[in-house]
């Protein structure tokens, strides 16, 4: 078990190193002068000199790389061009909003998706199979800005049930603050749930179908264990393993979805910040956003790995052999 956790942490560390190395190389090896990406016209000669020194642009590439990593360890992600603040200070509060949105969506997706997957597995037949296949194709085909726009149009503009955008009303009383945020969260969360639900249903259903054929399920049934307890107790735990694994792989997609969703709803997270940074060509902010999002995803993937280890006792006995 400890070996397994250790291996996973090492893998997570290597993944993060790969991610930041790629950004380092992209910024410096892009066609044109590497400095142009990080210098803007509005800077004074003094600013430019200070920035060049901070990035170590006068040194060799390996030295720059070492400096880049050292800055990273100290959470120094550079200065935003337009906001004239440290990138880390701009991103930190926004990251909390993004994690709130992604975390809630993921929770609700699993809350609906797993029982639905189990249900469709137990009632399989031509009819349900067709509906599930069609739903899954539609789910992975949705263009997020369109779905989000339709939601805003119907629920905010036509019905007036939900706010058009943002995450909170600025001058709301303390007692109503939570309810206010929840109302703002409804549409962005619904968007992300709709987009990701199909995958969870698909994987839960498929692995449930496989598990229900296993000998130990037949044994349990033969012993007279009731149907409900066989499904939810004996089968689901094993059927969950692929679902949790695919949840880990979905995180990257969820982040991509969050960037688009936040933009449509002006949700004050990292995603809408990326949109603003693109409009203003604020490269340090974009780089910082990627590094922070990559770090969050890698951390959450690690958590799903640990959940898989908890679900699958074979991992506790012998490390790293599981596929």
């Amino acid at each position: 078990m400890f070996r397994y956790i250790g291996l996973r942490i090492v893998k997570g560390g290597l993944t993060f190193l790969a991610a930041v190395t790629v950004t380092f190389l992209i910024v410096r090896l892009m066609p044109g002068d590497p400095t142009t990406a990080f210098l803007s016209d509005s800077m004074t000669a003094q600013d430019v000199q200070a920035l060049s020194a901070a990035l170590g642009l006068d040194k060799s590439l390996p030295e720059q790389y070492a400096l880049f990593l050292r800055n990273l360890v100290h959470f120094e992600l550079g200065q935003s061009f337009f906001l004239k603040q440290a990138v880390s200070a701009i991103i930190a509060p926004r990251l909390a909003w993004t994690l709130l949105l992604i975390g809630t969506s993921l929770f609700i997706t699993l809350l609906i998706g797993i029982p639905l997957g189990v249900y469709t597995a137990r009632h399989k037949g031509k009819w349900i199979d067709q509906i599930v296949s069609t739903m899954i194709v539609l789910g992975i085909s949705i263009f997020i800005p369109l779905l989000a726009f339709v939601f805003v149009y119907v629920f905010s503009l036509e019905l007036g049930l939900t706010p058009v955008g943002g995450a909170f009303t600025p001058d709301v009383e303390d007692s109503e603050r939570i309810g206010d945020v929840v109302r703002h969260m409804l549409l962005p969360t619904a968007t992300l749930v709709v987009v990701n639900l199909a995958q969870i249903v698909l994987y839960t259903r498929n692995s449930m179908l496989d598990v229900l054929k296993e000998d130990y399920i037949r044994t349990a049934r033969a012993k007279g264990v009731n149907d409900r307890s066989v499904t939810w107790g004996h089968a689901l735990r094993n059927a969950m393993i692929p679902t949790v694994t695919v949840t880990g792989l979905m995180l990257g997609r969820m982040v991509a979805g969050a960037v688009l969703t936040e933009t449509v709803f002006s949700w004050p997270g990292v995603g809408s910040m990326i949109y603003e940074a693109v409009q203003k060509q604020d490269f340090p902010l974009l780089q910082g956003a990627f590094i922070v999002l990559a770090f969050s995803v890698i951390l959450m993937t690690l958590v799903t790995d640990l959940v898989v280890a908890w679900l699958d006792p074979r991992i506790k006995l012998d490390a790293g052999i599981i596929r």
Partner: protein
Amino acid sequence: MRDIGFVESFSKHRLGMIGLTGIVIIVALGVFGPMVVAYPVGYNEAMPLAAPAREHWLGTDGLGLNLIDEIIWGARTSLFISLTAVAVATCIGVPLGLVSGYFRGRIGGLIDSVIEIAMTIPTLPLMILISAISGPSVGTVAVVIGVFSWPTLARIVRNSTLKLASLPYIEAAIVLGIPRRTIMFKHILLNAVGPALVDLTIIMATAVLTEAGLSYLGLGDPNAWSWGSILQNAFRAGHQFHAWWLIVFPSLAIMFFVVSFNLLGLGINETLNPKRD
């Protein structure tokens, strides 16, 4: 019982055939459309933001240009981007998957770790960074999407290779002294084509969604019409609430493309792996 071929049994898959029909329509639009319709350019002050009517079936945009022309040229851009992305992903993913599946051991493990790492990193923010730095261009976006689409393909080719390499006919081929390269490319790769093909249709679909997403965020090529950039133009000018056609039709085009390719993938998959029991 007669053994029916792939084409015949695919043609019985209703959803798969719907997808194939959709793709034929898109290809016809993207290939032949631009020969008939002139590239929409300039400014037509006579009729900006006209609703759909007989003279302009899908309405006009803020510049008074025909939306249908823009969508037809957008079909060409979408096809170009998705085909380029698939080509790039295939060139990286197939050899890596094949090698890592065939030579298990150290090289296989190493490549597998690289695949896993590449699958974990969230790619959209990285693509945004690259597109922002390199400047908007259809070619760059296409290559970038391809470069980030290979890991799933490599994983799928690897898994089929692992399965195939342990089958008796491969052992027989090795015993017969057939060179490794022939075994890998002829005996294994040809049999791994099916699952890979399914993933290629998904990459086609995802590439168009990603391009539309990037354009929507303002990273589209200003010199090429794409469905995503039509949307971005409409949103940026604030037309979304009084010119519904500017949002609905490009979005429908995107969904039509994506659903068609995903249905094709579904059809191929279910034809190759018929439901047991």
